C-alpha cells in the first residue's frame, strides 16, 4: 500500500470515527436501549429455563410415585392374596405342599414349578426304567437293613 493510500485511508477512518462520536442524542439513546434490551432478554432467558428444570425436577418424582402407587400396590395386594389362598388350600392337604406354597415367592412361579414337575419327562423315564427301580429298591433295602 502506497503512502498516499495509507494517508487517504487514515483520513477516511478519522472522518468515520468522528461521525460515530457525533451521533445525535436520539440515535445514541436508541442504540443504548437496544443494547440493554438485548442483554436483559438473554440474561432473563436462562431463568425461565431453570424454572422449567425445577418444575420438571419436582414433577418427575411425583409422577414416579404416582405410577408406583397405581401399579405397585395393587399388584402386591393381589400377590399376597393369591399366595395366602394357595397356602391355605395346600395346608389342608399336605404339609409338603404347604412348604412349597409358603416358600414360593409368587403364584406364577409356583404354577410354573408345579407344571415343570408334572411335565418333567425325567421322572417318567425314571419310573419306566425298571432296572433303575430295582436298583433303587435294592439300595433302600440295604440302607434300611
Amino acid at each position, binding site marked *: 500500500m502506497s503512502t498516499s493510500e495509507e494517508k487517504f485511508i487514515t483520513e477516511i477512518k478519522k472522518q468515520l470515527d468522528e461521525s460515530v462520536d457525533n451521533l445525535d442524542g436520539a440515535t445514541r439513546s436508541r*442504540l443504548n436501549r437496544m443494547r440493554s434490551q438485548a442483554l436483559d432478554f438473554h440474561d432473563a432467558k436462562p431463568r425461565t429455563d431453570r424454572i422449567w428444570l425445577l418444575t420438571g425436577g419436582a414433577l418427575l418424582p411425583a409422577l414416579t410415585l404416582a405410577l408406583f402407587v397405581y401399579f405397585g400396590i395393587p399388584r402386591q395386594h393381589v400377590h399376597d392374596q393369591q399366595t395366602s389362598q394357595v397356602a391355605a388350600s395346600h395346608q389342608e392337604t399336605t404339609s409338603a405342599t404347604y412348604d412349597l406354597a409358603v416358600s414360593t415367592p409368587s403364584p406364577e412361579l409356583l404354577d410354573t414349578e408345579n407344571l415343570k414337575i408334572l411335565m418333567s419327562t425325567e421322572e417318567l423315564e425314571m419310573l419306566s426304567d425298571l432296572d433303575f427301580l430295582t436298583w433303587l429298591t435294592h439300595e433302600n433295602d440295604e440302607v434300611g437293613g
Partner: protein
Amino acid sequence: METFLTSVQGRAFRMAEIATKSRDDALDIVQDTMYDFVRRYRRHDDKEWHPLFFRVLQNKIRDWYRRTAIRRRFGGWLSLGSKSAEPERTEDPFDQVADSKGKSPEHNLELQDSLNHLSNALKNLPHKQQQVFLMRAWEGFSTKETATIMKCSAGTVKTHYWRALNTLQEKLKDHRS
C-alpha cells in the same frame, strides 16, 4: 459483553446506515444484530466477538438487501413495502433531546460537509465494494477475516477493496484536506 457492544454499536449503525441509506432500517438491523449476536455468541471467547459481531451484521445487511429486492420486485402488485402498510411509529421522546456534545456549530458544519461527501461516495459504491472497504479500512480486518465475514473468497475481497479504494480516491479528491 456490554462493554464490547458499547464499543461497536456506533460503527455498526453507521455501516448499516451507509448500506441502507435509512436511519430507521439501520437501527432495526443493529437491533437484530445485537439480539442475534448475544443469543448465539455470548458464551464464546471474547477475542472472537469482534469478527463474529460483524459477521452477524453483514448477514443482517444482506437479508435487508434481499427483502428490499423482493419488495421492489413485487411491491407494486401487492402494495408491500408501502409506507401506509407499515405500522405507525410512536414518537420517541429522546428524539426531542438536544445533542449534548459541545462542539462549535462551524466545526459541526464543516464536519457534516465532509462527512456528507464521504457518506455519499460510500453509499454510491456497489454493496460488496462498500462493505468490504468498511471492513478492511475502518474495522481493520485482514483480507482473510473479511472474506470469512463476507462469506466470499480472499481474491474477491482484494478485488472489491481495490475497486472501492480507487473509486473513493477519485470521487473524494476535491474534498481531501
